[in-house]
């Protein structure tokens, strides 16, 4: 059974609202959407893809820091600082929040805290990615059905 454009648009609005409500996204994401127009129709998608690449690289590097004996807390903090910055830039509120906590554990050289934080960060990132990909899929479905995705 095919869903029509109106139903899809409703689903998209609901999904996006839920992402904001649950704190995955904050106002910065809305600001990002405002930067997209007919001349840059893929702007948000491009930035998101960049964020995914950046995230995966940073998470890998952070894991590597924690595998070292002794752990390189200074490098770890530098990664967390970078990740906090990029997540803030795209409106990834929950990821940003965990990064902030991560930095305090780095400063305290708390290995256990850092390990738990990294796991938390990986989990938040996965959830965000799945949710954003679902958002993207809905946008594509709307376009395919001849409609325009609401922002």
């Amino acid at each position, binding site marked *: 059974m095919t869903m029509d454009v109106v139903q899809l648009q409703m689903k998209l609005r609901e999904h996006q609202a839920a992402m904001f409500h649950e704190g995955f996204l904050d106002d*910065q994401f809305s*600001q*990002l959407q*405002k*930067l997209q127009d007919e001349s*840059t129709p893929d*702007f948000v998608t*491009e*930035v998101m893809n*960049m*964020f995914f690449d*950046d995230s995966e690289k940073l998470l890998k590097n952070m894991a590597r820091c924690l595998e070292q004996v002794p752990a390189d807390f200074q490098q770890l903090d530098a990664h967390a*600082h*970078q990740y*906090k*910055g*990029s997540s*803030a*830039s*795209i409106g990834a509120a929950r990821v940003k929040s965990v990064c902030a906590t991560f930095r305090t554990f780095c400063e305290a050289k708390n290995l256990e805290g850092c390990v738990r934080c990294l796991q938390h960060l990986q989990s938040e990132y996965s959830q965000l990615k799945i949710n954003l990909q679902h958002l993207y899929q809905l946008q594509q479905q709307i376009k395919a059905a001849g409609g325009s995705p609401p922002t």
Partner: protein
Amino acid sequence: MAMTVEAQFHVLAVDDSLIDRMLIERLLKISSFHVTTVDSATKALKFLGLVEDELRTFDTHVASEIHQDIDVNLIITDYCMPGMTGYDLLRKIKESKSLKNIPVVIMSSENLPSRINRCLEEGAEEFLLKPVQQADVNKLKPHLLK
């Protein structure tokens, strides 16, 4: 019939973060600026024509400043960058005879009064908190019209 081309202000944006470069470029372009982005302070200085001397330093007392046609009306730079920071870049620019009159704006994700004061004292026009908003970019044009 001759066409009149409206002069665009040229902004040099410096940030080591690819995502932030994408954002600042988009924000500046929406405000009708012509934009060049670089990922380091070193590359910014090279672009501005401040070349390294034989000792491979940017010591402005011995560095040669080549005459070049690159017309930059504003420099906007991130504060925290590996190697040369945005603050170091600001100082180099203000120490340079040819570049000191170019307005410099600093961006930072950290709201530290000591950092802000340092930058303003060194001659930065504005200190913007990241993530930078359209409203912040709108504040920049008056600095260019001085």
